[in-house]
């Protein structure tokens, strides 16, 4: 099997990697690039633990070939905080105890950010359906939904203050 050279941007940084044709983007992130924040929970797109964004759009990195990343911008959990400053979602997940074991947390954060980017004022139902592609077995989702609601409220308040 001959390797495929792929040029991409990950969390804004140019990255070049070589992968095999049958490797998924998740394999590449975890095994070749050392970005193990995205987790492999099922490899069938059913659990969302491997969530990343491609050109800003939410996807499961287990359902993307590494070769497909050519020319695209990939966003992963490792790029969510701005230096020392955690993203509000990251802060609120800790504050609200929205994680227990934490294996699903990176995927939830990526999905929640994608949700709020599109819809800064979601209803509880919109949050629940927006996060339905991410499985959590510890929390029963209650505290996750509350954390996202709290972030959305904070973002709206900030906006109101600025206006």
């Amino acid at each position: 099997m001959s390797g495929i050279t792929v040029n991409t941007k990950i969390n804004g940084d140019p990255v070049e990697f070589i992968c095999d044709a049958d490797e998924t983007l998740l394999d590449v992130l975890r095994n070749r690039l050392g970005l193990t924040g995205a987790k492999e929970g099922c490899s069938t797109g059913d659990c969302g633990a491997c969530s990343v964004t491609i050109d800003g759009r939410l996807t499961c990195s287990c359902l993307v070939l590494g070769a497909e990343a050519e020319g695209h911008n990939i966003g992963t959990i490792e790029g969510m905080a701005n230096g020392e400053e955690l993203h509000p979602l990251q802060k609120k997940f800790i504050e609200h105890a929205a994680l227990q074991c934490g294996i699903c947390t990176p995927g939830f954060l990526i999905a929640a950010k994608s949700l709020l980017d599109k819809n800064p004022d979601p209803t509880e139902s919109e949050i629940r359906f927006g996060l339905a592609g991410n499985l959590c077995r510890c929390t029963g989702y209650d505290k996750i939904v509350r954390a996202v609601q709290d972030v959305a409220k904070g973002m709206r308040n900030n906006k109101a203050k600025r206006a």
Partner: protein
Amino acid sequence: MRYERPTTLKAAAQMLAKEKGKAFILAGGTDLLVRLRTGFIDPDLIIDIKDTSGARAIQKTATGFKIGAAVSGAELGENAALKKAWPGVVEAANLIGSKQVQGRCTMTGNLCNASPAADSVPALVAAAAKAVVVGPKGKRTVPVEEIPVGPGRTSLKKGEIIESLILPKRPPKSGDAYLRFIPRTEMDIAVVGVGVSLTLDGKGVVTKARVALGAVAPTVVLVPAAAKAIIGTKLDKAALDALAAACSAACNPIDDKRGTRDFRIKVAGVLARRAAMIARKRAGGK
């Protein structure tokens, strides 16, 4: 395994035709990669068609809409004109998988997988959508219901690729709807799916209708008897009962891990009623 990303569909079709081993088309990949990872398929060649011209475009034409083969579910949902014209088709496509899957999955892929439970297909069939097929012998246009011929099998010949799906222009006073039954609220494969598209006259009488069922037979089925049951009616109780009965009668399902035969037959009728009422409302009926 090799990976190719041609820039024209013609080139893609040639690669497909020439390949001696097992070749697969990759658009959204949300089914293909699952089959690859679970060892269900062992491809020699994967042809990614996302970079082919028009593959990711939704075009509004004089006769309706042309939807490129690699347009994702999320992109369909973001197209206001398409959503207004064919809400049932868009809602069906948007039911496929999670938000993550929506970022990638395509209606064309949903059609070519030839799963009887594919969510977008009953809605497409009800909408009288057509598929534009490109192959070694040129282009042909076929009704979508003729693409799947059995679970996992299509009528596409070696070297043929679906380039786009065509939805007709929406006639006035028309509406469509798709409903499916799943055990959870998300993330499941349809146990039963029903697509209904209908047109009303000025008095609210159904003049035209198409009804299609998913997950109740080896392929998605168009049910003319169900359409007949509501054409000429105002969707009163008797008409809806006849619609439900016709849908149940058209079912030839199996017992499996997702539902029983009896359940599917019964629920097909229930969902048909509900979908017809939504379609009527969308058509401006009261």
